Structure formats: structure tokens, C-alpha cells
């Protein structure tokens, strides 16, 4: 009890430490969620300006322009300083990072596309004996393939690039197929009927999991709050390891080792104190997500009766973080060793745990390391409760692994300390 009281007194007198423990996680969770919110929204609040060079000036380029403008994600720029953009100007502007992207639509794209489709449709209808027998047979003109050029700012992230490329690809495929249908209708003289229903036959429907008869719709808050809460919980490694290193350098550790109290009791005092801190941090972040986020234009966090299970996951994640912090503090000789190593290792654990990139998208070797990362166990536990409507039984493997990690790290710390005494 006195150990816990002492630890709290030490923390209370360390303003910098308190800021790291309580304020920084809140700043982190608000900042990251606000930034990442747009990637989860189907319609973004801000439009990305992109350059468009239309050398075609036909139906295809008009259709592309209409689709891009209709997507609400982009604002189309065709002139810079009242001068129409050329391919060279667009290329230079994108390379310099003034614009993130440029689309160059080639000359005669509409005309050549229509010509190509006409030829193909004619060929197909001819093979069915439906071609115009009175029309004069002409040799088909050779039409070279057309290329829509996309220039990207080198600083643009691959995920954004891939998303844009895939949507433009889809847009062009739609234009192509609708042109084909239109040509068939024209050739068959069926302009006013609905022979060719152009609406997609196959559609997608995303089925959301349900909890208490309510659909769980994942949003940026439900993804970010668990991930960054876990990140903040693990950041306790830094003040905790510094606390232990300080005791060694101040000499108080010598006094503790000559007291009739086992090292395990001293460590238990630290564990209880920092577990309480972890839980306060966690509840503060949950409270911010529930009550503050709506005022920032973010969706509120929906804990929907899962607070107990979430608290259990947070508690065991706290155990794992504390075990790691105690081990680091025991092994490190100076604060210069423990602080940077602690910070870097937490970031590595977060990356491995899937806080930034989902584990399934990682290379095979990294997926293996992710599976043995405590941050990944914690994150899975949170996602199980938050997004998969899991019960206590479902999260048992994750919390058992987190506790095992705590036991192993504490045991190594105790053994290391014992071995060091035999120097």
C-alpha cells in the first residue's frame, strides 16, 4: 500500500510525466481520428484538386469529367493562370508537388473508341448474318490503342494512388461498355426500346454485424479509439522504465534491496499503480470519444454495453505494457537508454500489431511477427468486442496471451536482477 502511495506521490510531482501519461494520449487520439476520419467517409469533406488535360474534347472526355466532378472527391483544374493546361505544364506541376495528380486524355479518344466499337459490333453482327447487306464493304481501319496518362506526385502514398487508378479504370470500363451497348442499339435500329438494360446486374451489398439488434457500422472512431488507446497504454513503458532507472541511479534501489521486502512486492506496488493509470487513461480516451468527438464533427464512440469487456482487454493490455516497462527499466542502465528504446519499441510493436497497416496486408514474415506482438493481441481483443460482438469466452485467448507476456517479462526481470547480484 505504501509502495502504491509512494509511486503516486512521485508521479504527482512529475509534471512532465503526468502530461505524457494523460494529456498526450488524448491529443494523439483526437488528432489521429480527425485525420483518418476522411478515409473512412464515403464522401470527403475536402476535395483534392487535380489537373485535367483534355485533348479529346469528345463524349468520352466529357463523361470522364462529369464522373470526376460527380465523385465529390476531386475538383478539376483545366487552366492555370487563365491558360489551358498542357501535358508538359501538368507534368511539371505534379512533379513539383503543386498538384497531386494529372489526367491526360489523348486526342481523338472518343472518335477512335467509337470507330473501334463500330468495327467490333459490325463484325459480331456480320457473323450472325445481321449486317447491312446493302452497305458498301470497306477494309477495317487499323486503330491504335489509346492511353489515358496519369501523373502522380512522387510524394503521394501508394494506397491513394491505387484507389484513384482503380476508380478511373472502372470509370473508363463503364464508358466503354455503355458505348458498346449504344452502338448495338443503333445497329439494330432499336433506339427507343430497352433491349439493353445497362444497369449493373451484379451489385454488392455490405452486410454489417449486428449487436443487440443494432447494426454495427465501422467508422473511423471505432477503428481508431481501440488502436490508439492501446498505443497510449503501451506508452506507459517510457515513464515506468525511467522510474526504475531513476531508482537505480538515485541509490534508492539499494535501500529497497536491503529492506526485508522482496523485489516482487516492490514490483507489485509499481504494477498496481501503473495499472490504475492505464485504466484512467483508457476511460479518459473512451470519455473523449463518446462526449467530445461529436463536437468535433466525428461520430461518437458506441460502446453499446461492452464497457466491461473493453475494460478487461484494457486491463490485460496494461499488464503486458507494465511487464515490458519493468523489464526495460531493469535491464537499462540509464534514462538515455530506456527512454528512446522504450519509445521506439512501442512504435515497432504498434506497427507489428496492425495499428497502421492491417496484419492481413503485411508480408508473410511480418504476419508471423504480428502474431507474436502483444499489441496485436490487444487490438484483436478490442476489435472482437467493438466490431465482432464477441463475449468474454471469445477474448480469453487474447487476454491470456497478454497476461502470459506480463508473467514472462516480469520473470525475466526478476531473474536478470538476481543474476546481476552475483557480479
Amino acid at each position, binding site marked *: 500500500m505504501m*509502495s502504491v502511495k509512494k509511486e503516486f506521490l512521485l508521479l504527482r510531482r512529475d509534471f512532465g510525466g503526468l502530461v505524457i501519461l494523460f494529456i498526450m494520449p488524448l491529443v494523439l487520439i483526437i488528432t489521429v481520428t480527425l485525420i483518418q476520419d476522411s478515409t473512412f467517409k464515403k464522401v470527403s469533406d475536402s476535395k483534392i484538386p487535380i489537373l485535367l488535360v483534355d485533348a479529346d474534347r469528345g463524349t468520352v472526355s466529357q463523361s470522364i469529367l462529369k464522373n470526376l466532378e460527380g465523385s465529390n472527391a476531386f475538383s478539376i483544374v483545366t487552366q492555370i493562370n487563365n491558360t489551358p493546361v498542357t501535358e508538359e505544364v501538368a507534368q511539371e506541376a505534379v512533379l513539383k508537388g503543386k498538384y497531386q495528380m494529372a489526367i491526360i486524355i489523348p486526342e481523338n479518344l472518343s472518335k477512335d473508341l467509337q470507330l473501334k466499337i463500330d468495327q467490333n459490333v459490325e463484325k459480331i453482327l456480320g457473323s450472325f448474318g445481321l449486317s447491312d447487306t446493302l452497305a458498301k464493304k470497306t477494309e477495317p481501319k487499323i486503330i491504335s490503342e489509346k492511353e489515358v496518362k496519369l501523373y502522380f506526385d512522387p510524394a503521394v502514398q501508394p494506397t491513394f494512388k491505387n484507389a484513384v487508378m482503380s476508380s478511373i479504370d472502372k470509370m473508363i470500363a463503364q464508358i466503354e461498355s455503355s458505348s458498346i451497348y449504344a452502338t448495338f442499339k443503333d445497329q439494330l435500329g432499336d433506339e427507343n426500346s430497352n433491349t439493353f438494360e445497362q444497369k449493373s446486374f451484379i451489385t454488392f451489398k455490405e452486410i454489417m454485424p449486428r449487436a443487440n439488434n443494432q447494426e454495427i457500422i465501422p467508422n473511423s472512431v471505432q477503428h481508431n479509439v481501440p488502436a490508439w488507446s492501446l498505443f497510449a497504454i503501451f506508452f506507459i513503458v517510457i515513464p515506468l522504465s525511467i522510474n526504475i532507472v531513476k531508482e537505480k541511479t*538515485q541509490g534508492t534501489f539499494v535501500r529497497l534491496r*536491503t529492506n526485508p521486502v522482496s523485489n516482487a512486492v516492490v514490483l507489485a506496488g509499481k504494477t498496481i499503480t501503473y495499472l490504475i493509470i492505464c485504466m484512467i487513461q483508457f476511460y479518459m480516451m473512451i470519455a473523449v470519444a463518446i462526449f467530445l468527438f461529436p463536437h468535433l464533427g466525428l461520430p461518437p464512440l458506441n460502446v453499446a454495453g461492452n464497457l466491461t469487456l473493453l475494460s478487461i482487454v484494457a486491463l490485460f493490455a496494461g499488464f503486458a505494457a507494465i511487464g515490458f516497462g519493468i523489464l526495460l527499466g531493469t535491464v537499462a542502465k540509464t534514462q538515455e537508454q530506456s527512454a528512446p528504446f522504450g519509445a521506439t519499441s512501442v512504435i515497432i510493436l504498434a506497427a507489428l500489431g496492425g495499428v497502421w497497416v492491417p496484419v492481413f496486408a503485411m508480408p508473410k514474415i511480418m504476419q508471423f511477427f504480428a502474431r507474436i506482438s502483444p499489441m496485436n493481441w490487444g487490438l484483436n481483443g478490442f476489435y472482437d468486442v467493438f466490431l465482432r460482438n464477441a463475449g468474454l469466452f471469445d477474448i480469453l485467448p487474447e487476454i491470456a496471451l497478454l497476461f502470459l507476456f506480463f508473467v514472462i517479462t516480469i520473470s525475466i526481470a526478476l531473474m536478470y536482477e538476481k543474476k546481476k*547480484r552475483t557480479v
Partner: protein
Amino acid sequence: MQSLIEISQLSKKYKDAEMYSLHPLDLSIQEGEIYGLLGPNGAGKTTLISMLCGLIKPTSGSFTIRQLSYAKNAFDIKKIIGVVPQEYALYPTLTARENLLYFGSMYGLKNKHLKDSVDESLAYLGLIKFADKKIETFSGGMKRRVNLIAGILHHPKVLFLDEPTVGVDVQSKNAIIDYLKLLNTQGTTIIYTSHHLTEAQDFCTQIAILDRGKIYAQGTPSNLIANVPEARNLEDVFISLTGKELRDDV
């Protein structure tokens, strides 16, 4: 007097070190003594005290404190010893009282007994009016006095002190020595290391002079002086036994 500490062929050679920090030595310390371990830097004083406090393990040999050994009775030994390390082993951001209440509680002291013990000691060493000030605001002499109190709150049978008066003013040094004498009269056996030979000559009842990990002489201060021809004080004995060579080492 009854033998309190029995040391038999105790030695220490640190890992990767070429030489023994402490060669196998035998020593017997009686209950009620104020035993001074004197020697130049690197003599092995702190190594010997660290082993007796259970901070490091010996390379060979054994010792008992009140017939108890660390191998079997570490917890019982820790209850009857007090340790005052050379560094200020205190939390700088806690007050003197908070530090002492915490360290006292580690010895099982509680409630009124603990509070009274803290206040009495602070009062005796002239620190009661600073009890609620943070240690980081204290002078070196004040920190030394609080450091001493943290080691004696539980009234130990044996008190180990490593250079308890180093770097303090004369007033603080006198206060510390007077308090240690009081504790000794109350039944605490004191084992201490020091570089202050005049202080040790007046304070100790028994002295061992160590150098290069060996005991060169031991006895009462007066006997040690008497055994060295032309020695007028302990410093003459010390120089005669350990030489004038500088003991810089890394």
C-alpha cells in the same frame, strides 16, 4: 562480548576483473562495537560492506550475522540490519517525511509508531522544521542526515554505514556522529567505512585497515597507534601501512 558477525575466508572477485577486490579474509565483530573499516580508494571496504548487506554475492567463503546466513535467513537478517549507503538514497521529489514514512514502512513499521519514530529522529537531527520540504531543496548535510534516519528507523541491531559523513559541514558531521554514538549506547552495533581518520580515531572502538583487498591491521585505535613506532595518530598508522602511493584506478 558476544560475536555478532563472523566472517570466514570471504572473498570477492568481480566478473572480468584481473584481481580480487577482496582476498579471502577472516573477521569477527563483537556486539556493541563501533567498527571502522578504513583504507584508501579501492581497498575493498565498500565491497565488504555490500556483501554483508546482501547486495552482492561473495566469490567464496561465508559469514553469519547473529548466527544467521543469507543463504537460509536473508529475510531475518534484513530485519535486523540497517543500511546507510554512500549516495543519498532518497526520492528527491518527495519530502523528508514522505521518504522516511515510506522507508520505515518497508521495515514493517506502522501508524503512530512509524510517525513517532520519524518525528523523533528528525527532531534529534535538527530537521523537524524541514520535514515537509522536498529533499531536492536540501543541502548536502541535510540530505546526509535524512539518509541516516532512513536506515535506523527500525532500530537495527547492526548498522552498516558507507562514508556517512562524506561531503558535509562540520556541524552536520558532529550531529551524525553524536546520533550514531547514541544509537550505539542503545544497543546498535555499528560498522562503518570512512576516509576521515581523525573522526574514526575518536569514534570507533575497533578498526581494521584494509588495502588492496587485504586487512593489514586491526585492533583498537590506541593499540594500532601503539604498535607503529613513532606514530602519533591513526593517520601515521595508515600511511605507514598503506604507503604514500596514489590509488587512482578506473
